[in-house]
Structures are given as C-alpha cells and as structure tokens.
C-alpha cells in the first residue's frame, strides 16, 4: 500500500483523475450522441401537476404509454413487478407513439416502429403499468411551463440512441 507521495504514486493519482474527467465527458458525449444519432419519437402525457415546481426543479410526467393493456404482453411467463421490459412503439410521421407490444426480450423494430426500454411497475387484472425512467423532467428556467398555472397535457420529444439509452430532448404543450 502506498503511503508516501512518490512519483509512481503521483502518476497513479493523475491517471485516476484523468479517468474520472474522461468518464464525465463520456457521460456528456453519450447524452449528445443520443440526440445526434438517435431515433426521435414523441410521447403524449396526461396533464402534469405544476405545483411541485415551487419546491422542486422537476415535474413528474405521466405518459399515456405508461399504461398498456395486459393483452399487449408478449412473454413466456406472466409479467412480474420490477421486471425489465422492451416496449415496442408504433410511430407515424410526426404523430404520437402508441404501445404496440410489451416484450420480455430485446427485439429489432421495423420501419415506423421504435423500442423503448422500461420496467413493469405494477400488474393489474387487465392492464400493466410501466415506467421508463423518463418520468422526471428537469424544467429549464426559460420554459413556458414555469409561467403556467394550470396543468396541460404535454408532448414529450424523446430520442433513443442505437444502444438503447433514451433522453428527453424537449417538451411542448400538446395541442389537439
């Protein structure tokens, strides 16, 4: 075990610090690349509660795609809470994505489809409740959501990287 500030010790620390800097840059790079090279889809949410913005910097989004009929389940065994799943979404040109199936195994989407990873939150007699870990949206300071008082339904622009990671790109008010 090294105890003194020897040259090899200093070299080890420098390598370790460099690795940490590269790692944080790598996380940032993954975020950037997800937008640049990812597949872009739009998800609709139910009306969001804006009251929390007074105390926190994020709002909780409840996606329409977070509820799927149990009939959409495609798996060998019944779904379990906490199970990781792959949600097949049907996307049209500039239209909101809808759940086409919930799979236990990874799958390749066809044209006009996208796969978003998620978890089973709860299993009800007829429906599945899903979680995508996209539920927290950190609202930027200049967002119109900061001005509004009523909770509107939102259209959330999500990009999915080729390696499966997803991020929220932007949020707009959903106009019907």
């Amino acid at each position, binding site marked *: *075990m*090294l*105890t003194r*500030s020897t040259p090899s*010790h*200093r070299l*080890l*620390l420098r390598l*370790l*610090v460099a*690795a*940490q*800097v590269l*790692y*944080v*840059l790598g*996380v*940032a790079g*993954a*975020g*950037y690349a*997800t*937008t640049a090279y990812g597949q872009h889809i739009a998800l609709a949410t139910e009306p969001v509660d804006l009251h929390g913005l007074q105390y926190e*910097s994020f709002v909780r989004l409840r996606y329409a795609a977070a509820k799927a009929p149990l009939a959409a389940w495609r798996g060998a065994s019944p779904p379990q*809470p*906490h199970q*990781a799943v792959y949600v097949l979404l049907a996307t049209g040109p500039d239209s909101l994505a809808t759940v086409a199936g919930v799979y236990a195994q990874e799958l390749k989407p066809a044209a006009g489809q996208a796969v978003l*990873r998620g*978890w089973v939150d709860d299993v009800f007699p007829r429906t599945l409740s899903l979680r*995508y*870990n*996209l539920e927290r*949206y*950190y609202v*930027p*300071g200049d967002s119109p959501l900061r001005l509004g008082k009523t909770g509107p339904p939102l259209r959330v622009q999500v990009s999915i990287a080729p390696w*499966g*990671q*997803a*991020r*929220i*790109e932007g949020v707009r008010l959903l106009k019907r």
Partner: protein
Amino acid sequence: MSYKFLETESPAWVAEGLITEAQRARLLARYPPEAVQAVGLLPLLGSILVGLSALSVVAANWERLPTPLRLGLLLGSLVAAYAGGEYFLRRGNRRVGHGLIGLGLVQFGVGIILTSRLYQLVGYDVSGLLAWVVVGVLLSYLYTSQTLVLLPIIIGAAVQTYCTQALGLFSYATLGLVALGSGYRWWRRPDTLVASVLAVGLLWQAALWVVLSHSKITWFFIPAMLVYAAGDWHRDRPAARALQGPPLVAAYLFALGLALFGETDQYAGLLRPPVLAYLGALAAAFGLSVAGKRQRGRLASLPDWLLLLPGFYLPGGLPLAVATLVVLYAHAGSVLARAHRSGEAEQLTLGTVLFVIATMVAYFKLTWAFLDKSLFFLIGGVLLLSLSWYLRRRNAQRLAAGVATTVGAAPATPSASPENGPAR
C-alpha cells in the same frame, strides 16, 4: 488538563504548599494558552465562507449557464480538489490533504449525476454510478486515511439504495466492490471505526437485497453471519469485535422480536425459508465461524451463535415464545459468564442489561394474561428490585475478587477478554 484549569487551581496548590510559586510559574509556562489555535482557524473559516458564496452564485445561475461552461465548472472543481489535496499532502498537512481528495471523490459523483441530468439521460443500469464506487475503492488504497476508507463504503450503500429504489435492481458489482475492495483494505489495516461502518454498510446492502427480492427476512442473517465469521478470522481482536457488533445487534433484535411477537403463527410464518437451503447456508457460515474461532483461540465467544438458533421453525404460539426466551436467557448467561471469567466491568454491565431485558420480556409475555393487573405490577416491581440487588452484589463481589487476583498475580491476560457483545 486545560490551561484555564491550571491557571485557576494552581494558586490554591501554592497556598497548600503542594508546589512553590516558582514551580507554578514554570508549569504555566510549560502549557501555553491555546489562543494561537483559534486564530489559526480564521483563514479556514474565511475560505469556507468565500467558497460557499461561490457555490451559491453557481447554484442560483446553474440553469442559465451554457452547457460547456457547466461541464467546465464540474470538471474544473474536480481537478482543483485533487490538485489541492495533493499539494497539501506534499506540504505535510495530511488532514486537509485527505479532506480535499475526499471532496474530489464527492465531486466526481456530483459530476456524473449532474451531467446525466443536464442531458436528461436515462440510466438503465448502475454502470453510471458504479464508476464512482470503483474510483472510491481505488483511492482508499492510494492513501492511508480513515476518511478515504469510509467514503467508498458510504458511497456504495448510497448507490445500492438508489439502484434498488429507482431502478428496481440489485447491483451485485457494488456489493462485491465494497465487500472485497473495502473489506480487503480493512483487513490489511484494521480499524475499529472502519470495521463497524463496513459491517453496517454491508448489512444495509443485504437488507436492500432482501426487500427487493421479497425473500423471507431470515435470509438476511446468512450474509450478516458471513460478515461475523470474517471477524472470527481476523487477527486484530478489537477490530474483529467491532466488525461483529452490527451482525450481533441485528441477531439480538431479531430474537427479541421473535420472543415478543412469535406467538402469532402469522408472524412466524413470514420467517420460515425452505428448511434445507436455509439451514445448509447457516451451517456453512457457522462452520466458517467455528474454524476461525478455533484458529484464533476465541472459542469462548461461541455462545454468540445461540441467537441464530432457528426457533421460528417451531409451531408458532407459546412454545415458540418460551423457547426464544430460553435462548435469550442462555445468551445473557453466556455473556455474564464470559465477563466473570475475564473480569471486565463493561462486559458485566452488558450481560446484566441483557439479563434484565430477557427477564422483563419473559415477565410481560408470560404473566400479563394470567395475573390480576395490580398484582402483576407489584410482583414485577419486586422481581426487578430483588434482581437488581442480587446482580449488583454479585458484580461487586466478582469485581473485587477480580481486582484482588489481578493485583496479586501477574498482569491479567487481555487475550481472554472478548471485547463486546451486542449492545455496542
């Protein structure tokens, strides 16, 4: 003894003829007042305030800063903390140096979290935060600092908590890194505080695993007793006992709970894992522990395992409660017997407290239903009073005898004094 004490008391010593005035002056000169130290704190306090002001400016404007600047701030403060730590270490100021390096490690975690939030990036596994634990464990090997050994244990527990709560999965890699990485670091340089924190951290992760996997809570005691058995193999006795404290406390609380609530078969039913698998795993941990105790000559602490007797396989109801009480009494008795043999006052107190707890549980458990209430309290009070009188007399006798033998014979053998039982 403080300077102030010396200053106020010493005139009386001169008056009583204990020391002369000249000697008093020399004593006062030998211990100068500590005003210098307080002045030395001022620059530190000042820099903390300046740092806080910078921090609040950044935090208030964080959302408005352009992305590259935010990344630059995160990485800049990280590198600055490490560079500052290394600078102070080279100048010989170990405490500030290690503190700054620990701050750098914390900055790394903050950097990971804030960067993924910056991009609203979703993590599907723990890999993002696992790097934090890896770096923490590596740093703890680079320096001889208690803080830097404690940090990865705490970070590991926090990461595991986040992982099980937010992602709904258990990170075996985090558990392995803390158990093997920080564990080996402790093994090489034993320390009582690190031992206790390490044990608590590992038990916390084991508890998270039990909750997440919806296992019977009794499975918790397999990893807990493996931690205990690891203590049996360690050469450093105080550090080993510190590692064994948390598992023993957990086992004792569990046994106490069984004695209090074991009557309802519903509760006992929640505790029964498959017999063969559980008993096999427990026997394996027991074997490891016994082998370690034999190797290190500590077989006297074997009755600790009484708390792990799987009484919950008995049918729930009065037999189970009574059996658990017998076990609690046997355990308290073993602690008392060990304390009497080694003549340690602390152990005696502990054994007495355990004995009184067992008695109170037994009394409340077994007689509440049968006795008239006033009679119940009367008999209970008399019972406890006579018990306290008896134990105090016995302890005084034993301690007196212990002191006599210690003074008469050679120095007492410290090896025959297991340091501690559950109530640490």
